[in-house]
């Protein structure tokens, strides 16, 4: 197996992200006591597990060159539906598969509109976003508490980690999702087709790849991941509410981009979204530890840290790109004498 251990144009963003993440974490540890603790680090996962899942699913869509704006609303819808179903006394192990199925179908329908009628994904998924949110409010404008014992138990369950820390079930699901995504993207035909379509959809079509089916699958997968994320989120929140995760789609997209996934499609590693989420999480944690910023300064500082992060990333990446010799000898030299024989 030839893992991309050398620095190439495609993994440089990831490396830059990791580098910046480490330095941010270092800065935080230097600035605040108790920042450098296992639990603060693990909390990055605990608090963002759902975001990791949804961003990873979204990444598939983005790599094909599409977008899915409905993800966060779908999570909210899943939370509301779960809450309502649980309140109605339906067993959790019925609730979970049914919301998963619902999310998947939701994604499938969006994908169908996009692929079959060539409507731009922005529009379809924007519609999907409104629809999911609106449905939440139709079901219940108020937030609904979940007091199902099984849900509470799962929610409160902590897996102890070495060194005085613990993680939640959600983290495990998130890590499994990321691992699965990395595997799918690299070791299955579907995964490779996703990249091909992002590289050049028309070429993929001409090469005889199942473009239609793949795109459909990608939106379906995104719907599935949103629903899965919705379940994890519901564990995390133990409530269903239509206003949950307002604007969360932007967080997910930003995580993908920070993690080196190109919005124009075709490039990026599936470990990236998770790194993106963690990076955004560190920024947020630093601001919380700082603890004296007013509301507006919080926004300004988050924005500028985001800017600094992305700008630095760009600088590192373009530096490397310039350094790399862009021109290779395109031919083996043996061809030269042959020509003379001609």
């Amino acid at each position, binding site marked *: 197996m030839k893992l991309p251990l050398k620095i190439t144009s495609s993994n440089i963003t990831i490396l830059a992200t990791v580098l910046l993440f480490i330095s941010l974490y270092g800065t935080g540890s230097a600035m605040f006591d108790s920042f450098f603790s296992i639990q603060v680090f693990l909390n990055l996962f605990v608090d963002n597990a759902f975001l990791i899942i949804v961003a990873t699913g979204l990444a598939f869509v983005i790599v094909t060159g599409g977008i899915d704006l409905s993800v966060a609303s779908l999570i909210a819808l899943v939370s509301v539906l779960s809450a309502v179903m649980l309140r109605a006394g339906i067993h959790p192990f019925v609730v979970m598969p049914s919301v998963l199925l619902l999310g998947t179908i939701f994604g499938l329908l969006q994908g169908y509109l996009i692929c079959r009628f060539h409507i731009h994904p922005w529009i379809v998924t924007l519609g999907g976003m409104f629809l999911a949110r609106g449905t939440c409010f139709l079901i219940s*404008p108020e937030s609904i508490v979940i007091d199902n014992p099984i849900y509470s138990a799962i929610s409160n369950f902590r897996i102890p980690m070495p060194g005085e820390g613990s993680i939640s079930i959600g983290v495990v699901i998130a890590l499994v999702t990321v691992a699965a995504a990395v595997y799918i993207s690299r070791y299955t035909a579907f995964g490779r087709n996703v990249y091909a379509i992002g590289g050049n959809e028309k070429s993929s079509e001409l090469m005889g790849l199942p473009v239609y089916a793949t795109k459909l699958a990608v939106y379906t997968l995104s719907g599935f991941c949103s629903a899965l994320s919705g379940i994890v989120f519901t564990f995390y929140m133990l409530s269903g509410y239509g206003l949950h995760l307002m604007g969360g789609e932007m967080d997910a997209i930003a995580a993908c981009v920070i993690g080196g996934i190109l919005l124009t499609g075709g490039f990026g590693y599936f470990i990236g979204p998770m790194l993106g989420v963690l990076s955004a999480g560190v920024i947020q944690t630093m601001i919380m530890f700082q603890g004296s910023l007013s509301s507006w300064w919080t926004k300004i500082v988050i924005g500028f840290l*985001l800017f600094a992060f992305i700008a630095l990333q760009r600088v590192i990446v373009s530096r490397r790109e310039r350094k790399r010799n862009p021109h290779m000898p395109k031919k083996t030299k043996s061809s030269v004498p042959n020509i003379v024989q001609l």
Partner: protein
Amino acid sequence: MPFMSMFPNAIRSKLFWPAVGIALILVFNALFTPGFFHIRMQDGHLFGSLIDILNRGTPILIIALGMTLVIAKEGIDISVGSVLAIAASLAAFLLQKHVPFALALLAGLGIGVVCGYWNGLLVAKLKIQPMIATLILLTVGRGIAQLISGGKIITISDKAYRFVGGGYLFGVPFAVILAIVVFVVLHVITRKTAFGLFLESVGANRISSEFAGINATRIMISVYVICGFCAALAGIIVSSNITGADSNNAGLWFELDAILAVVIGGTSMRGGRFYLGGTVLGALFIQTLTTTIYTLGVPSESVMVVKAIVIILVSLVQSDVLREMLSRTFSKKMEKKVLVNETAA
């Protein structure tokens, strides 16, 4: 359709469907909302639902016009709502500090230009992806607006400023006249100079355009600047209209409506060809829908669902594929008829 025949084919087909959409909603209103079309003079100005649609539609319309150019360049600007809030807050803040109206107005518009320039730099020079580049200003901008206003709503008492968004000229809302001016100016810039051609060419293929001697960077920056300016102008109109600059809520989620208007108007998110006229119709369509929803008193909970369904229906109707599918089934029937006739003869 004599109005439509004024335009070349491509434009006509782009304008057609949003126009039909608007017409459908209006017909719906004609049937179910008595008095929707009633326009009367009141205190020397026009008054009625249709005027409201125009009046309320202007901020989104102006932003969408700027957004059209950005999208034509294969970009996107999701920071417009925040820019709007900054411009409104700054202008209102200055007025509160007794800065003359003209200066405050200039400062408001100027900050919009600066914001646009910033976005343009990030996208064109630093080559950050447009959505993320403008996401930064989306976040920071709202914070800056709140910083300027201290998180409060700044009340505006300046008469001249109030006129911008709330006044009437010859009985027509002044904001509507402003929107028309913006449209005409942008139309002239893009169609009477080579800007439009360059923009479409950069949007469709940046590399080729640069090979042909077009300064793509400058074009890209200028569209963001124009978009920033439009957002700022919309901010002034919005704040003037409610005689207060609301840094927290002004322009929230405007970017979604604006982008929607652009796309309904036939401009592709993939860049290239753009249709300012289509955007106008798109924006009016969205506003007609919104006003109708409010007038009908659709329960607050279901507003979003209604909007979602309408959006999807409109884009379905606009889809070439669906039209082709329909026309094919139609022509097949025709073919059969011809065959039948032939055998009969």
